């Protein structure tokens, strides 16, 4: 470990006209081009403009100071940018790129070549005017903060990019760039259809996409424009009189039965709106849905007004998600999504590859992505029930006490509804527990969760990035733990987790997953197979 932390080599002066890429390649720390200070300053000027109105508000007295304040501000900013530039060095070493930065707080980042996904050159307007370019190094990390060298002279940037690409591929000379350009993703040479949806299926999918979101959206919009609309739109009497010619006094007079009928009609109307909005949304999004197999992986085309054509490389698929609900399941319908490493957008996303399909239609698609859904029910295990129910039971008890007090003090009827809710909460929790199952079969983790929105995650153990054992106070009470897995793509706020495992089972399961991860070299996970 001779080459650690503090390097005795001083950064080279920038003015050296020698090949910067070659120097950086020798492991000599390099600064970026000094004009970066100017580029950085100009780029930050719009932020400084916000100060001006603030000063102008100060009144006429402030005006004379402006001529003084603005140059001082600019001088300070320039000095700041210069300091940042002075303390920012990078060097290309045998196995990694090292970036050192920070004036008071030092930050030293090491990006191993094996982890570099792509090296790009970005040219923003100001940098272009100065003949500069930023070299962006992407590693496919969970967040978009990799390494950026801004700015270098364009030829230097290009040389550096080529150098990094060569080093990454273990080339010591010059490699043909074409080999690095990646596969032609949209090559339609050998396309084969995997899944398509006809219009009947599309409408059916829309039916299952029942949602009252539209009503919510309209409600929210109305809220926004509340002040612009006349007051009487908020008065139901106005609408009753306007549309139905009904007077409120009349409703009061027609009796209970008619009121119930009117209420049912309202509910039916809401349901109709829910169904229609579900169908409209689905048709707009999934019209002409078509999933094909292409050499690189999957190609999905869909959309009525906005057509999208997405290629999802096979090796980027991290996990499969099979989604269904109690009703859909009854009719044998499921949705298949692939959780994938972000490609274009930094945010990872789930790609729907079959919005409404039978198991027989899903299996070939899964097989194409090297995923299985072969665990039989006997291979699944449930977790401990108590941690699921604990909090809800306490809440139910509190509610019951409240309801009893209402019953005794106010009116026998008043408590009944609360009793019903109190009974319902633990029931929901029990259903959640009942539908939470997991299995580790054939190196693949199966996690089933949810009873209304049922979700089966299929995760090959080797796609695991990190594994947490997480203990809440309730877990401590029952001697359980949750296993939370970090997976590329998917949601950061709702990671894949197995709740309420007995602690020893959790440790054992984690060890088995980790054994799969560490035994197989999988670092080059994004490279085409």
């Amino acid at each position, binding site marked *: 470990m001779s080459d650690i932390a503090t390097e005795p080599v001083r950064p080279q002066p920038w003015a050296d006209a020698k090949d910067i890429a070659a120097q950086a390649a020798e492991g000599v720390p390099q600064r970026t081009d000094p004009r970066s200070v100017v580029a950085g300053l100009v780029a930050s000027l719009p932020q400084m403009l916000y100060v001006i109105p603030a000063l102008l508000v100060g009144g006429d007295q402030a005006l004379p100071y402006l001529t003084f304040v603005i140059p001082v501000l600019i001088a300070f900013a320039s000095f700041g940018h210069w300091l940042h530039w002075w303390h920012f060095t990078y060097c290309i070493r045998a196995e990694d790129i090292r970036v050192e930065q*920070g004036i008071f707080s030092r930050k030293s980042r090491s990006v191993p070549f094996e982890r570099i996904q792509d090296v790009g050159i970005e040219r923003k307007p100001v940098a272009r005017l100065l003949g500069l370019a930023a070299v962006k190094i992407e590693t496919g990390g*969970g967040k978009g903060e990799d390494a950026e060298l801004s700015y270098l002279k364009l030829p230097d940037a290009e040389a550096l990019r080529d150098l990094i690409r060569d080093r990454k591929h273990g080339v010591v000379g010059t490699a043909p760039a074409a080999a690095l350009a990646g596969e032609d993703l949209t090559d339609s040479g050998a396309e084969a259809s995997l899944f398509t949806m006809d219009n009947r299926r599309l409408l059916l999918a829309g039916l299952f996409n029942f949602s009252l979101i539209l009503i919510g959206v309209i409600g929210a919009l109305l809220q926004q424009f509340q002040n612009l609309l006349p007051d009487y739109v908020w008065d139901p009497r106005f609408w009753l009189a306007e549309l139905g010619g009904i007077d409120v006094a009349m409703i009061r007079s027609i009796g209970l039965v008619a009121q119930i009928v009117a209420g049912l009609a309202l509910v039916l109307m809401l349901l109709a709106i829910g169904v229609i909005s579900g169908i409209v949304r689905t048709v707009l999004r999934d019209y002409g849905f078509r999933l094909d197999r292409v050499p690189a992986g999957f190609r999905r085309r869909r959309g009525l007004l906005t057509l999208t054509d997405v290629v999802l490389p096979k090796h980027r698929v991290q996990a499969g998600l099979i989604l269904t609900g109690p009703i859909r399941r009854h009719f044998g319908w499921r949705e298949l999504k692939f959780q994938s490493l972000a490609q274009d957008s930094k945010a990872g996303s789930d790609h729907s590859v079959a919005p409404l399909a039978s198991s027989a239609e899903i299996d070939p698609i899964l097989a194409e992505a090297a995923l299985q859904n072969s665990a039989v029910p006997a291979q699944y295990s449930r977790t401990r029930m108590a941690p699921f129910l604990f909090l809800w039971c306490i809440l139910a008890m509190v509610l019951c006490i409240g309801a009893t007090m209402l019953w005794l003090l106010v009116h026998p009827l008043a408590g009944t509804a609360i009793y019903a809710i109190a009974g319902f909460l633990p029931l929901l929790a029990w259903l959640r527990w009942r539908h939470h199952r997991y299995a580790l079969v054939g190196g693949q983790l199966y996690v089933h969760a949810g009873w209304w929105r049922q979700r089966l995650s299929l995760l090959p153990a080797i796609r695991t990035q990190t594994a947490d054992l997480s203990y809440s106070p309730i877990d401590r009470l029952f001697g359980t733990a949750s296993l939370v897995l970090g997976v590329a793509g998917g949601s950061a706020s709702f990671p894949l987790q197995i709740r309420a495992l007995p602690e020893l089972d959790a440790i054992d399961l984690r060890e088995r997953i980790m054994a799969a991860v560490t035994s197989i070299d999988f670092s080059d996970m994004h490279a085409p197979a």
Partner: protein
Amino acid sequence: MTDATPPPFAVEPLWGTSDGLTRVEADYRWVMTIRSAFFGLALLAAGGIVEYILSQETAAPPGTVMGPVALIVLCLLVLLPARRWHRLGYDISDDRLRVARGYLWRTDTIVPFGRIQHIDVDQGLLDRAFDLATLVVHTAGTHNSTVSLPGLGEARAAEMRERIRAHITRETL
């Protein structure tokens, strides 16, 4: 697990089977204390203002606000850093980094070296004063995209970085 560097001192299990962890540098307690002190000062100032207003408006005896606030700040400065330090541990083996932290809500994270995308060694101003550093590893996962281990000695952090980096390089050969 064959660890080349034995833990500097023996550690007792926390609870469950969370043993086998190495504590970070004892100086890290000072870093936490000083950080808490800034927060504690703000808390004391706020408490002082409330107390002053209260004494002007009502006949509250002195210390109704400042008493509890001072107690909280004392806990913050004296009890918490030591507890948090005691519950922060790590273990680095041939192929994985393990970081465990927290008491009421405890998290015990394993990051296999093979999944680490890049590695940072960060040093804040306070860290530098105590010759400490924070090792931050980045993974491709959306959950745990960064896992940080504060309170390492600077040389130790650099050594761990080299070890992880060497592993990443070796495994792809």
